[in-house]
């Protein structure tokens, strides 16, 4: 069985992200494996352990993206591939999905492609669905449990109303919810392997495609308007008195 995990590198979630002149900056905060993608890696490794599959982690990005790939290798993925091409500057979600689907096809004989729910930078949450659509594979999003029963996958999906249980033929695209379980830490053995890994880089020419035309532009990014809050600290002689005052204040706000 062959598994692919598609990941992205993003600024750390603790970063102070600021817009400056229409560009996003995050100071010296580190770039990390997208936290949602850690769950995708975890799901892939759980499935790998159950099936003895081969897990390849892939990402689209610049040279620095190898760091994120190495984190996934250290967690236990078998190999990594970076897709990097200057022509992908300004690519939109649809273009990235097209590139990922071409890469998955080039890897060949892939049974499952895993994705995180979304990336914490763009918060688009569409890449799994779009990649699946390009591939023509079933899309199973927000999976919380994944089992392989014979030649079909049995997935529980987190939806607004609870859980939906779905069976799917292979190959399939799966996006993973946090309910899959805490992602494992990299192991020391994995770290040793990752630090020595030579990660191949594929260009668009290697994939045999041209740069897809972006259909969505991002002309500007701004800081949200500062929240003008004047904080009123409620004090009193007893918790009861504080509670009564606070309840009055909130009632006056007419939000209930």
């Amino acid at each position, binding site marked *: 069985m062959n598994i692919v995990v598609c990941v992205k590198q993003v600024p750390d979630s603790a970063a102070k992200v600021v817009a400056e002149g229409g560009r996003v900056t995050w100071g010296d905060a580190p770039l990390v494996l997208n936290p949602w993608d850690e769950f995708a890696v975890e799901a892939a490794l759980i499935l790998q352990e159950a099936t003895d599959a081969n897990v390849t982690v892939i990402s689209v990005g610049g040279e620095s993206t190898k760091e994120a790939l190495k984190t996934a290798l250290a967690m236990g993925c078998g190999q990594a591939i970076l897709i990097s091409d200057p022509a992908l500057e300004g690519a939109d979600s649809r273009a990235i999905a097209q590139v990922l689907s071409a890469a998955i096809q080039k890897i060949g004989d892939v049974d499952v492609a895993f994705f995180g729910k979304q990336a914490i930078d763009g918060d688009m949450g569409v890449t799994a669905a779009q990649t699946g659509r390009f591939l023509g594979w079933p899309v199973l999003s927000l999976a919380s449990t994944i089992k392989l029963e014979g030649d079909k996958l049995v997935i529980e999906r987190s939806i607004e109303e609870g859980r939906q249980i779905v069976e799917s033929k292979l190959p399939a695209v799966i996006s993973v919810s946090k309910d899959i379980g805490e992602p494992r830490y990299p*192991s*020391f053995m994995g770290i040793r392997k990752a630090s020595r890994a030579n990660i191949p880089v594929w260009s668009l020419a290697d994939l045999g495609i041209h740069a897809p035309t972006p259909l969505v532009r991002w002309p500007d990014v701004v800081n949200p308007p500062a929240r003008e809050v004047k904080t009123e600290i409620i004090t009193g002689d007893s918790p009861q008195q504080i509670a009564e005052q606070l309840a009055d204040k909130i009632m006056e706000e007419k939000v209930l």
Partner: protein
Amino acid sequence: MDFTLTEEQRMAQQMVREFAQKEVATIIKQQDREQQMASFILSRMGELGILGICLPVRYGGQGMDYIALGLACEELEAVDSTLRVVLSVHIGLNSLGLFQWANEEQKRRFLTPQARGEKIACFGLTEPGAGSDVAAIRSSARRHGDEYVLNGEKMWISLATKADHCLWVARTDPEAADPHDGLSAFIVELDRPGVRRGDLHGKLGMRAGSTGWIALQDVRIPVENRIGMEGEGFKIAMSCLDNGRYTVAAGATGLIRACLEASVRYANERQAFGRPIGRFQLIQQKIAYMVQSYDAARLLYLRAGWMKNQGIRNTRETSLAKWFATEASFQAASEAVQIHGAYGYSDEYDVERYLRNSKGAVIYEGTSEIHQLMQAAYALGYRQDAPLRCELPAYDPQVWQSE
């Protein structure tokens, strides 16, 4: 000269950080209050490979280098000193001592399960009447045929009640001209008949850790449990301290970092006289000193780690790193409490725990005074390190990582 960490070292550091921050930071306050070590700590550290981080794979370790051990200690103590103590004792004072001095069979029997985290190790040197004055050790080991019979009591032993193996230093030759030469080292399995042990409470700091005593009464161990030769006990103990002190230095560096981070966070948040207190110069000075201490302490321990990697004797450099970092961590913690004002004095914040924990390391594994004497002795030419029969092997990734 290369000041960059390798990718391997950085990733190992990050992994230990995640463990400490995610799994221990959340419960440490409560454990400290209850004066109890959380029950999962040792098993979890074993499972993650941290207990064998810098030992060769063929002895059940993870094949990382000595610098990775230091980085792990820094990360652990940035959350709580008691986490780092586990590595000081299990790896620094015991497992590395075995790695340096034990024969192949002993490495297989004792070191391998320790590196895998299946057996927990401690170090029995200090006695109720023998601390800095190691020659005053009264524990005895008498040979009877193929066995030694051990008697005596050790105090202030970290992990005394948690450990399976103790590297025990006892007197085998009461007649030796130099009392140092009358000492020998043994591995005592602590489930043997005649072993009693208990915890000590009421400590100023290190309350989420385990510190205790071990008493042996006519405990019989096979001759095969003796590490090195008879009379090499003092040298072995000093080798162990070279490694233990290294972990203490690296850990204290982590404690300085924790003080610095907590102080910076608080100085940016806390307002006084209409602005964040970080804007005041006397606060800035305290923070500047913490930055200075952190960088200096870090460079000192990394140098010692580098020397270990190269197989260069580092007793002087390790002693210097330990002396400097522990004193600086005590200072940093004290100033961190000061910056936090009255809040710093309460256990709502972590800094009071940092202060209580930092004091211990100025005392154990060589008091600051001992290290000052050592440094002066080196400078004045009174002290030289003679080559040892068994040196700590230089780090070789090929050897460390082959099965």
